[in-house]
């Protein structure tokens, strides 16, 4: 299996390809989904596939091969298709290797796990102890092994593994809370804490009343702040900018957030998506996206970097550059200090369904879910429901007043697509709307 990536690349070169990348992935993940406090299904995967990128005379073709029994035939077919395709004049090559990579290995205790039932029980029990009546969610043990080879001299091996648990606790349909546990090391994995948090928010969110539209100072829990920073990082991909899916066009060097905001992408750091290299084999590293509120760079692969007259940031995906993991520099406010700062405002704990009216302006709306709380003089005085956050991505980031002094790793279905290390955030003048009667 180890030399298959090299064989694919060699075959592509024999067929006349100028550039070729093969990422052979062996996936050994397992999952337990649970609902109404008990498992609903357990799943396990035994899959091997090869993500292949090849370029024939500036004709770019990508694939994910699942049949690895006849690589030669698959490559013949791909190159034939490439020849019938069209040139992409904007294509500018892949990174030149070889590169040296650090010695990072997954936690053997994570690899040794064969069941996650205890983690599910711990999370559910944690939530129930706080007053929840019904819990749902999923536990994952991720494990995949990558063997990368490119036509520019790259050879890399990376074994990645991690643990993840997402739990939603409910007291009733409209009184719920959400908790997340993420870790690459077993010793750092705390599903019970995630359950307790979900249960605590659910219990606090009892008997909500319909919210009132207006502009509010809002405390963003890490999970919902992560949904915003995930948007920022995704929209900072050079591909998003070029395709019209970003409000950050022509904004490098300009203010796009408050001076309190510094965030970077870093695939090399410990996270659920820690990786040694990107799809071109470029070693992952820290790349500042926003420094004290100023947009520093887009995220690039070799081709988009050339287009923007800069260097790759090591964010190549199979076709377009993507963020790996987002880190927000914590501020110096304790959680209590952030809440105390709110004389009359809201505390939002989660959101979903973020959609844009215009990507180039950043006008969007998103729907807070789980606990929504009215705060006066730092204290929760009411629970709300049925509101929508209708605002603008850049305006929200510019209105960040304070950041908490500790970051947590957040990743969640749909809204936080990659690990985002985020603290509590205080944002002023947030526009809240609600359904008309």
């Amino acid at each position, binding site marked *: 299996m180890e030399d298959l990536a090299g064989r694919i690349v060699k075959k592509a070169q024999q067929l006349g390809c100028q550039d070729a990348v093969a990422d052979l992935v062996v996936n050994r993940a397992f999952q337990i989904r649970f*609902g109404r406090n008990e498992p609903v299904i357990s799943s*396990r995967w035994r899959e091997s596939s090869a993500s292949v990128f090849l370029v024939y005379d500036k004709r770019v073709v990508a694939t994910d091969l699942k049949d690895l029994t006849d690589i030669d035939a698959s490559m013949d077919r791909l190159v034939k298709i490439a020849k019938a395709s069209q040139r992409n004049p904007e294509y500018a090559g892949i990174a030149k290797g070889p590169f040296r990579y650090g010695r990072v290995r997954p936690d053997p205790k994570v690899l040794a796990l064969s069941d996650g039932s205890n983690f599910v029980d711990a999370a559910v029990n944690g939530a129930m102890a706080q007053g929840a009546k019904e819990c749902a969610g999923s536990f994952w043990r991720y494990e995949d092994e990558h063997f990368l080879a490119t036509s520019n001299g790259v050879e890399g091996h990376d074994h990645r593994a991690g643990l993840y648990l997402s739990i939603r606790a409910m007291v009733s349909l409209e009184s719920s809370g959400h908790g997340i546990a993420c870790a690459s090391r077993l010793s750092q994995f705390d599903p019970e804490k995630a359950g307790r948090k979900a249960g605590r928010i659910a219990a606090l969110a009892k008997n909500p009343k319909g919210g009132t539209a207006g502009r509010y100072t809002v405390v963003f829990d890490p999970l919902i702040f992560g949904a915003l920073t995930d948007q920022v990082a995704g929209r900072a991909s050079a591909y998003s900018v070029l395709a019209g899916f970003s409000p950050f066009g022509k904004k490098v060097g300009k203010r796009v957030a408050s001076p309190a905001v510094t965030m970077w992408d870093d695939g090399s750091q410990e996270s659920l998506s820690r990786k040694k290299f990107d799809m071109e084999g470029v070693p992952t590293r820290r790349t500042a996206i926003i420094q004290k509120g100023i947009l520093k760079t887009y995220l690039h692969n070799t081709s988009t970097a050339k287009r923007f007259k800069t260097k790759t940031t090591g964010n190549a995906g199979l076709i377009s550059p993507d963020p790996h993991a987002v880190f927000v520099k914590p501020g110096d406010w304790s959680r209590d200090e952030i809440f105390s700062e709110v004389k009359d405002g809201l505390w939002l704990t989660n959101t979903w369904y973020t959609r844009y009216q215009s990507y180039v302006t950043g006008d969007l709306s998103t729907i807070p879910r789980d606990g929504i709380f009215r705060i006066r003089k730092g204290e929760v005085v009411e629970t709300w429901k049925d509101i929508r956050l209708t605002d603008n991505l850049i305006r929200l980031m510019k209105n960040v007043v304070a950041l908490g002094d500790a970051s947590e790793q957040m990743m969640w279905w749909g809204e936080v697509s990659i690990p985002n290390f985020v603290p509590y955030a205080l944002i002023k003048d947030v526009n809240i709307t609600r359904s008309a009667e």
Partner: protein
Amino acid sequence: MDGERDLVDFAVEYARQKGASYAEARFERQEPEQFTLKNGTLDALYVGADRGIGVRVLAHGSLGFAATNALTRVDVKAIVDDAVKIAKASRRKTPITFAQEEPITTDWSVPEKTKLADVTIEEKIQEIQGVDKAIMELGFKIPVRFFQLADNRITKYFANSEGSKIGSYSPRLRVTYFLTVVNGADSEQTHRDYGWSGGWEGVREWGLTNRVTEEAKSMQRSLTEGKKSPEGKMDIVVSPMVSGIAAHESCGHPTEADRVLGREASQAGKSFIGPDDLGMKVGSEVVNVCDDPTVEHAIAYYVTDDEGVRARRRYMYKEGRVNEFLQNRETAAAFSTRSNGASRAVNYNVEAIVRMANTFVEPKDHSLEELLEGVHFGVYMKSFMEWNIDDKRYNAKYAGREAYLVENGEIKHPVRQTIIELTTPTFWSAVDAVGKDLDFEGGFCGKSDPSQPLDASLGGPSMRLRNVYLR
């Protein structure tokens, strides 16, 4: 694919030997081909070659699922062992049961007049470049033109321990486009999606060049002639595109039985409709919303679902009341009813769950002109850009992209950013007349963990809503 069929049959038989009270296996081969044309340039071509087998078993009252893409007896045996083992190890207290179904033996396929496999990639690219050229010839400033053409050929074989053996073939075609039109410092963006089950002839059926150029013209007109949308309570006539999104979001999702039961609570959420709410009033008597996998050429067409149950039309809202939930065999057993064939998986390597297919407002007999005639002062919303709905499917927002002021039954100038932000019952209760101009758009429906973005059609005719608040 006899080899694959043998492996599937073997998986089912072996799972029974290992102690599964029920077993099913599904082979699936997907052959997607997709490209992006960005500002007239071919960005990258993606050609997939995906296949494998997934096995789901019921053992000791619990479900286990395992999948592999290694198609040997040894590998299939290993995933059956996995599935049975993890099901038996599950700490579930309430046994899962499946609603009864008769076994089916059949092979079905969607006809292709022009087989997708016979159309060269050159021809496909040229087709979309022709559309791109047509909008450039309009002379507008369109700095971002993003087209994605995707086709897929899906071959499946399903078997279960009750004797079902079903083969199928579904060719599918989809185009998604995204335009940004600029006028000075102002801009408009649009995103549209069309789907088709069948062969390359679907491209002609769409009439893509006409649709895209008309869209670009309407964007330019919005920028140059558009005025602020009126606010307050008034009548609104919505197009098939808006009816379709409402049918999907504000009827289809809240009537998914697994959501109603809480199985999706942590991801796609729950529902404002409870398990005992069949018959509850949610709209006016003219509102019938259904989901029908058997709509010919709609992108989510199928004859049997991924649990081997025959598909049929289901009326989720009938005469304004909750009439039926979308069911698979697991949820149907919980409701003491029968599956209505709504179980689908995005690929072999994920479990089949309750899903919508082609969801639409059932048309009636009004022409668009008749719907507009009854409006003294209001808005005609033809398309939307931003939309969302909460996780209990109660508070929805549809923000207009193309919309016009209507005065005394006549369409006047374009209005910009008309916002419908209403609860589900408020929306459907305001409908007083339903048109006959049924049309569909394509979409992806998101649900489950691992995420299963699935082909769906969203449709309906034009509808008139009375006295709703717009802003």
